[in-house]
């Protein structure tokens, strides 16, 4: 099997799913964002976003913290070091697949 095809087959399925890839991309350059921001940017429904965040949290790629801003509840999502590595590795793999390199 050629290297690009092998990379494609072995792609991290947690990260590879488009909605989760978008969530990780949005969280990549910041310290964190709340649930509403991720929902606004991704256009996902609350249930769908919750489900994707749970998958990412189970994989250890995202941390979820329930806080309050005054009396208003706020759910902050942060990418973990493992999540950052997984995202960057996956981006490199995608680049390799597109360019036909490693």
């Amino acid at each position, binding site marked *: 099997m050629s290297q690009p095809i092998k990379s494609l087959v072995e792609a991290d399925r947690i990260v590879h799913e488009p909605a989760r*890839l*978008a969530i990780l*991309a*949005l969280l*990549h*350059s*910041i*310290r*964190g*964002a*709340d*649930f*509403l*921001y*991720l*929902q*606004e*940017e991704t256009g996902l429904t*609350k249930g769908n976003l*919750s489900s994707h965040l749970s998958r990412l949290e189970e994989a250890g790629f995202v941390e979820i913290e*329930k806080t309050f*801003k005054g*009396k*208003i*509840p*706020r*759910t*902050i999502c*942060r990418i973990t070091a493992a999540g950052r590595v997984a995202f960057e590795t996956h*981006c490199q793999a*995608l680049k390799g697949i597109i360019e036909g390199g490693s």
Partner: protein
Amino acid sequence: MDKPMPSLKELIDRPFRYFYDDGLVELAVGTLFLAAGLAISAWAATPAGSIWRVVGALLLVATPMLGSVLFKRLVQRVKDRWVHPRTGYVDYDESKPSRARWVVIGGALVLAIAGFLLPDQINNMALMEGALLGLVLVTLAYRARLARFYLLAAIAALIGLAAALWLGSDLWGSAATFGATGAVMILSGGCALRRYFMAHPEPSGHGDGA
């Protein structure tokens, strides 16, 4: 599909853009520039040797320092009250060194050197300030992918050029460059804020719904 799929790079940059989307930063910085322009004009209009000239000089130093601290807090408060409940909250990592900062510092150095090479009859200060404001805005426009910042950059550079050509003294040139750029930024920020509020009406529920 109506819109083309965004690239991953675009998604990574989107939180940065979000900070400028609502126009509040433009309103704050524009007000600061306008205040600086007014302070410089007041200083230029005061006769040399007057005590008011000293007061004016102190105000000139205090305006950007106090203004930036005050406006940073004010923008944060306004965002907390009106922006975050509508489109969400982003916790930015301010500790990360930005490459854009080095682009601006490098550009400022090049402009300062170029200033020495310009003929004497041209008001160098206003030209340099207009070019520097333009450079900062172009860098922001590129990073945030906001087209209106490219327009603002061109306007700032043109204002600097016009002030350099038509206003005799460095002080009046600087006052015009900062004041007029500030006024244009306030206008642009106001339009962006109006558009933002129209696109995102006040939510009925409390919390982020997670």
